[in-house]
């Protein structure tokens, strides 16, 4: 009886693992095959990898899309980390009743569905397009601004600041550091792992963001990676080998981040609930 149960558990988990991994294997095998072979269900590695990559880089504008996505993700992440950690620190270390009320109001914004505010946001950026083209419609700046400050990351930093030893703040003040000096010279270096975890989540969110860039970006040369892949995916005569190559290249950064920084990754997820 015990053995039957054991076997059942292993069979069940193995099935789950196969279902989880299969699309990845299929993707990796497909980038080495011709489009025809992919449609015929070939599951063995082929010899078409270099050919697919050549076609991808010569016929599809994946390089500009990679550059756009990287610029957006890096700037968004830096802004998010700076602004959210400043706020999270401010709410926790310089705690006051007024700030606590504001904090709770900010948290409410986490429940706002993006679809509900995208039209007003679009109109808002449309109205400043002429005066400030760098943050107007069809600009990378407009993609970054609304996503760079979110209550989630402020909450995340505040939760983690609860474990930051307050004595260090006092020590810094006694050593003659200004309040901002304490933040930059003491808080930031001490909280490296929190920053790492937040950076991972922020980068992945930005790299994978689809709806807002779809709304605000219009010209093809400004497209980000998700917009490009969505476009490739909806073509009527898809070249599967090439599209799969684009998807693999788009997934590589996030997959690498995950495998290299697994601990931070999980810590980042957990940081949002503990406390």
């Amino acid at each position, binding site marked *: 009886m015990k053995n039957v149960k054991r076997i059942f558990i292993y069979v069940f988990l193995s099935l789950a*693992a196969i279902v*989880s991994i299969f699309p990845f294997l*299929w993707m990796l095998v497909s980038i080495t095959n011709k489009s025809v072979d992919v449609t015929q269900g070939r599951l063995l590695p082929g010899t078409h990898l270099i050919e697919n990559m050549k076609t991808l880089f010569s016929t599809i504008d994946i390089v500009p899309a990679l550059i756009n996505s990287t610029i957006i993700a890096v700037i968004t992440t830096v802004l998010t980390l700076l602004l959210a950690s*400043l706020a999270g620190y401010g709410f926790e270390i310089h705690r006051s009743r007024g700030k606590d009320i504001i904090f709770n109001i*900010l948290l409410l914004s986490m429940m706002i*569905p993006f679809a509900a*505010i995208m039209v007003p946001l679009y109109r808002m950026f449309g109205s400043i397009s002429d005066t400030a083209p760098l943050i107007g419609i069809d600009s990378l700046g407009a993609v970054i601004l609304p996503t760079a400050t979110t209550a989630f990351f402020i909450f995340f930093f505040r939760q983690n600041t609860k474990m930051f030893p307050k004595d260090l703040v006092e020590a810094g003040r006694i050593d003659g550091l200004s*309040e901002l000096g304490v933040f930059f010279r003491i808080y930031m270096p001490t909280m490296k792992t929190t920053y790492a975890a937040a950076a991972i989540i922020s980068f992945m969110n930005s790299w994978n963001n*689809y709806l807002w860039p779809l709304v605000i970006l219009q010209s093809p040369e400004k497209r980000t990676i998700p917009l490009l892949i*969505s476009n490739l995916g909806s073509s009527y005569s898809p070249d599967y080998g090439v599209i799969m190559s684009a998807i693999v290249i788009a997934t590589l950064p996030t997959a690498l981040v995950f495998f290299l920084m697994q601990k931070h990754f999980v810590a980042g997820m957990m940081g949002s609930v503990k406390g």
Partner: protein
Amino acid sequence: MSQQSTKKGEMDLPVRLRYKETKREKTGVYFKKKVGWLFIIISVIAITIFNFYPMVQAFLLSFQTGMGGNLEFTGLSNWQRLFGDPTFIAALTNTSIYLLIQVPLMIVLALFFSVLLNDPKLKFRGFFRIAIFLPCVTSLVAYSVIFKYLFGIDGIINIFLLNFGFISESINFLADPVWAKVVIILAITWRWTGYNMIFYLAALQNVDKSIYEAARIDGANSIQQFFQITVPMLKPIILFTSITSTIGTLQIFDEIVNITNGGPGNATISISQYIYNLSFEYTPDFGYASTVSYVIVILVVILSIIQFRVAGEKK
């Protein structure tokens, strides 16, 4: 302050220090109060501009009609239009179906996996854990395109089913109103189950093992242990994951657009996709789009309150 002056033994230094510190202390209190606001001010302004102000705008827009920029107030006409709009009703129905089937399915699966993987005697634990979590590294658009191809008429799922003799001719999954919904539910479940599992696994590590020992001595089998101990212990985290999943599924957009594009007909269209179509695909009708978007807001609020109530009641 006194510690500092006792540490430094020199005669004139404490005086200077004391003078400096009282000054610092005075300005410090004043300074600290102000500077605290400086830390949060940029974020508060940004969130107000990019979240709260648009919410107010959307609310005002929901009472206006007109194409593009020519909007005028028409009272409740948009709200009346909702109930007679077949596309809106389709979008609301589809989103509710995704929510009612997908969220419970995923949470039960994730709980089940986490309990199995929490057993220290289990072999290949790390492998199973990484395998089940792996789908989370894919972007929503990328995995949606993959699922679209997997379930295409000449996709690999059809080839498998044909080769193993489960079906005699290919099923056009994405052109069938029921199958298309099934594919979308399967896709979301594939992507997010591992994500939720990680939360449960972490929470299970904090559960005292001796509770299970005691239950075993009392003769509770593993199913009883699961329902009598594990589920109650994990209740806060189950609540957290069901709220985030509910909010996520209510807003579902990327998957629908990239797997079925709402089709066939409007069999898979979601509320978010309908809002997008109203604003940017059809002739822009920002007023009515805002009305539809407020339906999501209302649903998020109601469902969150219900979930809190349900979780609070049994305590």
